């Protein structure tokens, strides 16, 4: 369930000599760090500008990490993985204050890795077959995914998920994501908060969505997640 995100564990061990002759293992809480972008800030030009990645990753994403660290400092939550934290903070639909920050840290990690330079095009192999099986055609997947992004009113995300062995498109508001649904595994996400596209295309969210689908999706990464989910 869920996807393994390396580097997001919130604790590490260190050996500390004490007055006894034996060394003791001590759990020391570490902080979450902002994962580097998988590419340089200008790597997605001309589709997403360097300025956008600079602010989106360097300010928005970084702030979610900082704020989450401040919230969980010295609390039991700091001992959890990010994914565990999200489920706990979701609190069965009455989210605690940590949820928004935790969800957004995950969502942005997942989003950067859902894109790559020279992305887009079409999936291949088993993933392509599964998309055709569950949507009827790749075109129909694109239509549904674009519609999800376009109709998420306000801030949010569009997703491709695996659920019960089938692929489907979903959308979530604000910081929400499929991790809080035990039946779903996220495979692909697209940020439709206005900060994701406003410097580049302003109000024209549909243009950003088309560019994302046609030019940016990292289908290799989606295929990797799909293989892990099965």
């Amino acid at each position: 369930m869920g996807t393994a995100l390396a580097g997001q564990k919130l604790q590490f061990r260190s050996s500390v000599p004490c007055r006894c002759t034996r060394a003791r293992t001590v759990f020391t809480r570490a902080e979450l760090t902002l994962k580097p972008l998988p590419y340089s800030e200008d790597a997605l030009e001309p589709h997403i500008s360097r300025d956008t990645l600079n602010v989106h990753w360097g300010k928005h994403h970084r702030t979610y990490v900082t704020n989450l660290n401040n919230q969980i400092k010295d609390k039991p939550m700091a001992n959890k993985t990010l994914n565990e934290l999200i489920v706990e903070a979701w609190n069965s639909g009455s989210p605690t204050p940590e949820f928004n920050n935790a969800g957004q840290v995950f969502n942005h990690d997942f989003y950067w890795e859902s894109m790559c330079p020279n992305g887009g095009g079409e999936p291949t192999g088993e993933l392509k077959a599964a998309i055709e099986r569950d949507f009827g055609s790749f075109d129909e997947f694109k239509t549904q995914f674009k519609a999800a992004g376009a109709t998420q009113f306000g801030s949010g995300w569009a997703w491709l998920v695996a659920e019960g062995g089938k692929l489907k498109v979903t959308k979530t508001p604000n910081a929400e994501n499929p991790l809080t649904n035990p039946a779903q595994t996220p495979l692909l996400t697209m940020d439709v908060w206005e900060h994701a596209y406003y410097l580049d295309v302003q109000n024209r969210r549909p243009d950003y969505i088309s560019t994302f689908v046609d030019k940016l999706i990292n289908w290799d990464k989606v295929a990797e997640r799909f293989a892990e989910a099965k």
Partner: protein
Amino acid sequence: MAFTLPPLPYDYTTLEPHIDARTMEIHHTKHHQTYVTNLNAAISKFPELNGLGLVGLNKAAGTEKIPKDIATAIRNHGGGHYNHSLFWKVMTGPTDSNGPSADLKAAIDSAFGSFEAFKEKFNAAATTRFGSGWAWLVVQEDGKLAVTSTANQDNPLQMAIVDTPGIPILGLDVWEHAYYLKYQASRPGYISAWWNVAPKREATDPVVT
């Protein structure tokens, strides 16, 4: 009778440097226009609702008065049209005399202790509204002033939907489209600057009396 996009009471450049001209133009001609267009499309299916007017539609949002088929559209686009119409009216150029009317100031002092204390609460509501939404100063049913915020294009007139209903006196748009071109991630910078162009004294007079 269709709703129409109201003209701004000033030029796109008037609120510079606090709100940039490009934002004003896109915000008015694209975002607000889209709410008007979509509202009209929803109403066209049920022309009898025209009699409610924009305030009436918002008050009816989330109730059985609005057909299920257009419930979301009325909430989102009826909300968006009302909210932006109010937003343009409460702002004015920075060199014009700004600040609340004497009556409003007295009511604020009474409700919050001071104008500064009210501003702090209002700014906090605007800063902490997660995602898209609005911060509001409202007059509640019992005549008391309150600060609140709403998500997306919800507004305090939508009494069946929001937790602090009331008549809005001031509204501040904190959707990213309201500030991103100039302020990017700095919503607090935008909120702070907004007080240079709001509130417009005349806009607040009728509501307090």
